[in-house]
């Protein structure tokens, strides 16, 4: 093939055209943005759902509910499944989150708070007068159904920890249809037993006690009958398209019933007219809509005519709010024409684990002075004020500093290791390291005496580490760059690498031996205390615990953790908390808002938000 193109006559015109195209492009986008101030959104006049009396809720990006039965396996144990689907239909026996506070809610729970007797070993639970939507009453039998199921299929339930509920129950009885009595193997902390053990119980209706459509099972009365019921209910849970039509899932004790369920995340709820709780739903519909990314959600939110309750990505806030305001107070809201800003915090702590079992750098991580040095270069206030626009709180120990609670100790409030390059430098130089600011510090005095680097650290060992962090979150990315830059000032070289969230959580796991080579991993979210609502450490920092990602171990801490689960009151909690805050099992980092919630103007009841991520749209109304 030959080609004939005229080359000679390329004219100035072409250049002008190239130039003018660029100008047009710039003008089109430039005019959109004006001169430095964010585009003002036009008020759409009416809130999206006002006329139809519905509320549309934006699901968090890239997560949609896909497991309806509250007895969730680990793979389907997620915030979106519990908070955005199961809790709306089927209420747990105890509801946590009380008017924004991190405590049990007596009004929304299905039972009165437990009464302890017999030296704390007998736990008596009185159920309130609730009804299922099929007309039957909520009875002790419904609790037994769950209990038997849990005993029979505990390995298939996400929140089961060996040795804990139901393993720590010696006997159970139902003296009358509204009372359940548990006898435990020993006395436990009353707070812990309620918040972390009884909290997992969700009574199940008699209608679910089936082994096939139309065939009754006997799991509620007989543990050995549970396997067949389990198999049936799991099979039904795996059939997403039938969620809204399956008669099983229409038997609810929560304020909502499912009316439409799309596997892609478009879900519609309608009020349960027979709900026995304090507030019946007044909206005609509650609608959940899915989003691929928070940017996509924001583009729709901005329009102001689809979403009633959505969220503002942090990067779309131009102005930081005042640093002196409380964490949950709202600052300037760029969408104020249509929405009210309500920052939403979860009861959790944010941190990233370091791998104590790493064969090469583990010995360095085992040194408290090193952890102190590393913690001291984390500029929490700086990251909070710049990247997080002051929507966040510092993390200083295992108990969240927000929402306020009597559990927070003075040590945590004072922050044992505030941001200080000088302190970090001192920690290292005092312990045998030659600090090379801007380079990499090396161990000059190996050995185990005071002032030496410590056991297992050779002369010339370098402070050079790999830190993998979850990509895609502006605040985490900025925080990690800031950390790298600060650490470099004391010669700690951090090779930071962004990676997908699941890669980070899949890499930063408890391990041992030669293949245990990860060093630091930051998935960005730390830990939220739900459904283990009491901030004890038995799953996080106890030696060998499942979620002890960095394989941290300290016998003194282990003992304090056992105390927190077996002794009631705040003193044991604070002792544990102080010791852990000082011992740095992980590196603490700021706890950001869970979401900068935007509530449509005129929608009432949605601005006080649950610290455990549950939603209560039955309380919303126009």
């Amino acid at each position, binding site marked *: *093939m*030959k*080609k004939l*193109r005229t*080359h*000679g006559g*390329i004219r100035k015109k*072409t*250049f002008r055209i*190239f130039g003018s195209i*660029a100008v047009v492009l*710039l003008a089109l*986008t*430039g005019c959109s*943005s*004006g001169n*430095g*101030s*964010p*585009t003002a959104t036009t008020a759409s006049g009416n809130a999206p759902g006002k006329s139809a009396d519905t509320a549309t809720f934006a699901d968090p990006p890239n997560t949609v509910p896909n497991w309806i039965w509250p007895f969730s396996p680990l793979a389907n144990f997620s915030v979106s499944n519990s908070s955005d689907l199961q809790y709306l239909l089927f209420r747990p026996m105890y509801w946590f989150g009380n008017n924004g506070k991190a405590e049990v809610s007596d009004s929304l729970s299905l039972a009165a708070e437990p009464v302890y007797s017999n030296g704390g070993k007998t736990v008596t639970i009185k159920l309130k007068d609730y009804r299922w939507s099929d007309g039957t009453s909520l009875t002790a039998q419904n609790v037994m159904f769950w209990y038997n199921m849990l005993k029979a299929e505990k390995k298939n339930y996400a929140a089961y920890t060996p040795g804990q509920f139901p393993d720590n129950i010696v006997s159970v009885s139902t003296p009358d249809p509204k009372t359940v009595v548990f006898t435990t193997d020993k006395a436990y902390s009353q707070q812990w037993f309620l918040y972390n053990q009884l909290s997992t119980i969700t009574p199940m209706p008699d209608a679910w006690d089936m082994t096939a459509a139309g065939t009754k099972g006997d799991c509620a009365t007989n543990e050995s009958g549970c396997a067949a019921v389990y198999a049936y209910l799991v099979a039904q849970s795996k059939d997403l398209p039938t969620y809204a039509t399956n008669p099983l899932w229409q038997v609810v004790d929560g304020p909502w019933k499912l009316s439409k369920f799309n596997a892609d995340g478009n879900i519609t709820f309608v009020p349960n007219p027979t709900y026995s709780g304090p507030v019946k739903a007044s909206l005609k519909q509650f609608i959940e809509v899915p989003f691929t990314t928070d*940017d996509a959600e*924001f583009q729709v939110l*901005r329009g102001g005519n689809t979403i009633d309750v959505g969220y503002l*990505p942090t*990067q*779309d*806030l*131009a102005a930081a709010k005042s640093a002196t305001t409380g964490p949950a107070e709202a600052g300037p809201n*760029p969408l104020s024409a249509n929405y009210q800003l309500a920052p939403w915090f979860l009861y959790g702590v944010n941190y990233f684990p370091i791998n104590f079992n790493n064969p090469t750098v583990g010995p360095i991580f085992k040194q408290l002075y090193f952890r102190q040095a590393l913690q001291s270069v984390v*500029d929490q206030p*700086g*990251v909070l*004020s*710049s*990247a997080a626009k002051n929507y966040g709180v510092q993390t200083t120990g295992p108990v969240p500093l927000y929402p306020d609670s009597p559990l927070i100790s003075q040590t945590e409030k004072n922050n044992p290791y505030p941001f200080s390059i000088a302190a970090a430098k001192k920690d290292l130089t005092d312990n045998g390291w030659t600090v090379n600011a801007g380079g990499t510090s090396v161990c000059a005095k190996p050995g185990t005496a005071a002032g030496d680097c410590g056991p297992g650290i050779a002369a010339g060992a370098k402070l050079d580490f*790999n830190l993998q962090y979850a*990509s*895609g979150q*502006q605040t985490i*990315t*900025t925080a*990690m*760059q*800031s950390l*790298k*830059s*600060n650490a*470099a000032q004391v010669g700690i070289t951090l*090779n*930071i*690498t*962004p*990676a*997908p969230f699941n*890669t980070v959580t899949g890499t930063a796991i408890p391990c041992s031996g030669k293949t245990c080579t990860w060093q630091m991993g930051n998935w960005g979210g730390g830990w939220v205390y739900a459904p283990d609502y009491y901030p004890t450490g038995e799953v996080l920092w106890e030696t060998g615990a499942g979620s002890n990602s960095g394989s941290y171990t300290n016998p003194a801490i282990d003992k304090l953790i056992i105390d927190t689960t077996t002794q009631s009151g705040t003193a044991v909690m604070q002792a544990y908390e102080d010791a852990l805050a000082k011992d740095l099992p992980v590196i603490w980092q700021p706890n950001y808002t869970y979401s900068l919630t935007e509530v449509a103007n005129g929608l009432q009841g949605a601005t006080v938000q649950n610290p455990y991520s549950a939603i209560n749209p039955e309380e919303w109304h126009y």
Partner: protein
Amino acid sequence: MSDPGRAKVDSLGEMPPQEPAAAAPTGLPVGQAKSMFQLGFEVFIQNKLAIVGMVVLVLAVVFCFVGPLFYHTDQVTVDLLTTNLPPGPGHPLGTDETGYDQLGRLMVGGQASLTIGFAAAIIATIVGTVWGAIAGFFGGLVDAVMMRVVDAILSIPILFLLLFIVTIVRPSIPVMIFVLGLTAWLVPARLVRGESLTLRVREYVQAVRVMGGSSWHSVLRHIMPNVIGTVIVNATFQVADAILLIAYLGYLGLGISPPATDWGGMLSNGTAFIFTNYWWLIYPPGILIIVVVVAVNLVGDGLRDSVEVRLQRR
């Protein structure tokens, strides 16, 4: 005639087909090559757009590699007190969300984009050319096996390969060059193979064989020089593709690890701030990418024309 470039980028789903690179030039006596190159060069410099592209590229290289010698900025230390500043004294193009000076960052990012773009293109071209020439020259079973390997790799979504590699190795500039180079060689391999297939039957290659010349000798001495035009033209488009591809990787969160960056990473970062209107984080890297990619394409077009004219005058 097929354009494997299309298939290659389709797993990203977004990139258009390249304009056909030099359409099958037919063989020409080796002895005339030099004068033909001169002829081609003359055609090239007559092509004013191509010259403009060349000038733009040189300016971009000067900006990125020489600029930092005169315009000193700290691209290592994060300053959280000076984030997202609009252009002003001290920061002609403002600062980004970690407080880096944006103008200085454009230079650093440009170094990465240009280095990766050119180096990946060179690797892809060398590997692809050798692979394609061997397959095309030997033909038969060798050809079938080698080209099915190409087919197989083309059929694996490139995103999957990239995600895999980036997950197990820390994405630095050399790693990116390697990764992009090794996924982009398939296109030149197909092109060169197609050409050497036609060359193989040409008289002079046949003659070399009859005279007892070795196969390798034929490949190196006769086939390579003849496909070089096509290859160079394709290489320029590879540069443009590589620059765009790292931009997509940056958007997907798989780009180069900070504090290093590239224009694509800067742009995807900046687009997060379109609502807050930090335009200095969006348009400078966006325009630089477009201008440089257009320039590379102009040069490629110019080269193609000169290659073809060279062939037509034969």
